[in-house]
């Protein structure tokens, strides 16, 4: 059973590699192409005069921020008004303002933190025209920003400040990547049993004569993009643990592949567009290493089970008749291996969908997703946001190496100077600092502590997890952490700041690099395409965020793990 679990994990990795490579090549063509297709031209004409013009980073950012503002207002309005609108067969009322505010921030920022209850809160219209639309466009915005930053890096001649066009990049992300992949995944999910209907709940009369309500709806179309766009917000409250979102072992592996597919593919894309293929493979390998270490810790930890389970006396042994281990809040059809792998994968990217309850994970098993997120969602991170987050850390690594050999640091032929380093440091350190400040506020105030569900050190971990997840735009949760006006508002702050501060730093960085001339490689240039750089980068990732979270880890998972 254990060997079977390990084999599933290895096969998953191989298939992921095999799929992400061709997709990366395709993405490089999509963003690198000069000519627009007729639909793209029509789309840009619809948006108005000048909508197709080349933009420097400031114009790119202002188009983006304006779009996000309009999205936020529309989504908030929709959630508040859903009770009066159509496609609401179960007659759900308006979403309360705190939850609507948090959910709006959550979906616009590609986070999909769930303070809402899915099937009990959202009408079909809100799910489709509100949440799922943001699933597409928030992912598309991240991918657009990455494309712009990579163009800045790839400009050889220097002197130009143009990074591309926001609307064009958004269109290409959705039309050529997200929508086609979603259609394919939706069909696979349908074949496995995921519902797709506009009809409302069914009331069944059970074999013992009770009445049972069964929620359904347009689930497959929503789950597909939620998995692919590093979104993660479930149609149902219990997300992909619910059989209607994830009915079989096959649907589960496809959803897990969708979690990591685009984030890994974009590393390949970056290597092509920036003409730095070996460098990209080093980044790819660093990310694979972090994923492998994470699942290598989480799987045995969950299989071993918690002290409470071991002392209870029930049979935890993996055998032919059961997967054993910590099955609390896990589903039989996934068992331990697939749930541990999912929890690791969903937090290595900023997805946050879950196929089991993380709050019930063992202290060590639950620390893996927490640390994964805290590393900054760069391994490989969210669609777009992951790689531009990684670029901050790459610059820090290059800078550290430059200090050691006493040369001005260079990255891909561009001199890295004070402005770039300031932006990289801002991008890398802002979110971890924000997490610690917000967590402190949440555990120091009675209003914040009201959200905590489990007693003791685990309760602290719930709060830490909540703000780590929201500020890093992940969206997974130790779901016992409850929604109050205080926590929903604090979360909204985490969501918006955690998304837009690094995003703007990345665009500014792209603009700054675009203006620089490429200098020729010399014998003294620090090489970024070998194993040495890989180890250095790994060290920088671990040290930058890892040291910041260590004190908080001792108060949470480590304290809990030592106790039992």
């Amino acid at each position, binding site marked *: 059973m254990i060997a079977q679990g390990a084999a599933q994990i290895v096969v998953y990795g191989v298939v992921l590699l095999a799929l992400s490579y061709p997709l990366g090549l395709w993405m490089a063509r999509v963003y690198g192409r000069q000519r627009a297709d007729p639909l793209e031209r029509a789309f840009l004409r*619809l948006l108005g005069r000048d909508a197709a013009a080349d933009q420097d980073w400031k114009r790119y950012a202002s188009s983006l921020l304006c779009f996000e503002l309009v999205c936020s207002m529309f989504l908030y309005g929709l959630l508040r008004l859903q009770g009066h609108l159509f496609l609401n067969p179960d007659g759900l009322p308006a979403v309360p303002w705190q939850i609507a505010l948090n959910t709006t921030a959550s979906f616009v920022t590609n986070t999909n933190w769930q303070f809402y209850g899915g099937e009990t809160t959202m009408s079909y219209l809100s799910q489709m025209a509100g949440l799922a*639309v943001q699933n597409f466009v928030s992912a598309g915005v991240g991918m657009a920003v990455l494309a712009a930053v990579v163009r800045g890096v790839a400009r050889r001649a220097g002197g130009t400040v143009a990074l591309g066009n926001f609307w064009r990049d958004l269109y290409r992300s959705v039309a050529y990547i997200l929508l086609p992949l979603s259609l394919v995944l939706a069909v696979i999910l*349908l*074949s496995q049993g995921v519902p797709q209907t506009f009809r409302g709940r069914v009331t069944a009369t059970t*074999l013992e004569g009770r009445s*049972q309500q069964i929620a*359904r709806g347009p689930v497959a179309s929503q789950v597909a993009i939620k998995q692919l766009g590093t979104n993660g917000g479930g149609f149902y409250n219990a997300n992909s643990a619910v059989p209607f979102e994830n009915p079989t072992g096959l649907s589960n592996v496809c959803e897990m592949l969708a979690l990591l597919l685009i984030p890994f593919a974009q590393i390949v894309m970056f290597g092509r567009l920036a003409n730095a293929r070996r460098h990209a493979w080093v980044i790819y390998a660093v990310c694979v290493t972090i994923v492998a270490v994470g699942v290598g810790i989480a799987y045995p930890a969950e299989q071993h089970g918690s002290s409470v389970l071991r002392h209870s006396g029930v049979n935890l042994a993996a055998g032919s008749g059961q997967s054993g281990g910590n*099955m609390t809040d896990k589903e039989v059809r996934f068992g331990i291996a697939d749930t541990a792998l999912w929890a690791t994968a969903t937090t290595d990217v900023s997805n946050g969908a879950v196929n089991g309850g993380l709050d019930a994970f063992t202290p060590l098993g639950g620390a893996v997703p927490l640390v994964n997120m805290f590393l900054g969602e760069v391994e490989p991170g969210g669609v777009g946001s992951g790689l531009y987050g990684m670029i901050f850390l790459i610059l820090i690594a290059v800078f550290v190496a430059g200090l050691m050999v006493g040369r001005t640091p260079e990255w891909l032929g561009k001199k890295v100077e004070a402005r770039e380093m300031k932006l990289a440091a801002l991008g890398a350190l802002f979110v971890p600092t924000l997490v610690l400040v917000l967590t402190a506020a949440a555990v120091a105030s009675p209003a914040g502590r009201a959200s905590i569900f489990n007693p003791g050190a685990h309760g602290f971990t719930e709060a830490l997890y909540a703000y780590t997840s929201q500020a890093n735009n992940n969206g997974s949760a130790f779901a016992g952490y409850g929604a109050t006006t205080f926590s929903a508002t604090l979360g909204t702050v985490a969501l918006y700041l955690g998304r837009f501060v690094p995003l703007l730093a990345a665009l500014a960085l792209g603009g700054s690099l675009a203006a620089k001339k490429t200098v020729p490689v010399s014998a003294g240039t620090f090489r970024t395409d070998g194993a040495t750089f890989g180890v250095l980068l790994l060290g920088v990732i671990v040290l930058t965020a890892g040291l910041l979270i260590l004190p908080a880890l001792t108060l949470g998972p480590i304290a*809990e793990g030592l106790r039992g």
Partner: protein
Amino acid sequence: MRALVASAACLALCTVVLGLAYPALVTGFAQIAFPHQANGSLLVRDGSVVGSSLAAQAFASPRYFHPRPSATQPAYDAAATAFSNLGPTNPALARLIARNAQAILRLERPYNPGLTIHDIPVDAVVPSGSGIDPDISPAYAELQARRVAAVRHLPLATVERLIAKSTVGRSLGFFGEPGVNVLELNLALDAEHHG
């Protein structure tokens, strides 16, 4: 101002294409190609819906196989799924496990002499992820088989044959873990009894 107009136009277009046309297209396809799954994998007996093969339902009678514990309020609510969120060291989890294990021992021991807590598979005593996990582990089905056979006056072999029939193996023989679909198994038992 121009950017605001462009943003509004873009969002409007996205809402129509991605928010309405895309789910409508998938729904149209689903209703033609996979009508049973698309409407919730509902199970019908004598013309009325008795549940879904993707949702556990409550069973209390000893004549039936019982599903895993559920943390939804009330239990097995397929319209309000929920984790238990009980932390690994929470004393409430220890109490819940003890209570569930004692209940199983009381129920099953008369038919499984010498049954101890060490024989109870873990999935039988801890809440499932969704609260409506339709499956139990093959080990838990095996544990319940003697009781169901005895109460229904069926040969154990018949019950075991029905368990095997309701066992969902790994997808493609490889992905996921095997489980026994409780509702399908109980329906098969009832059919066996009548037939």
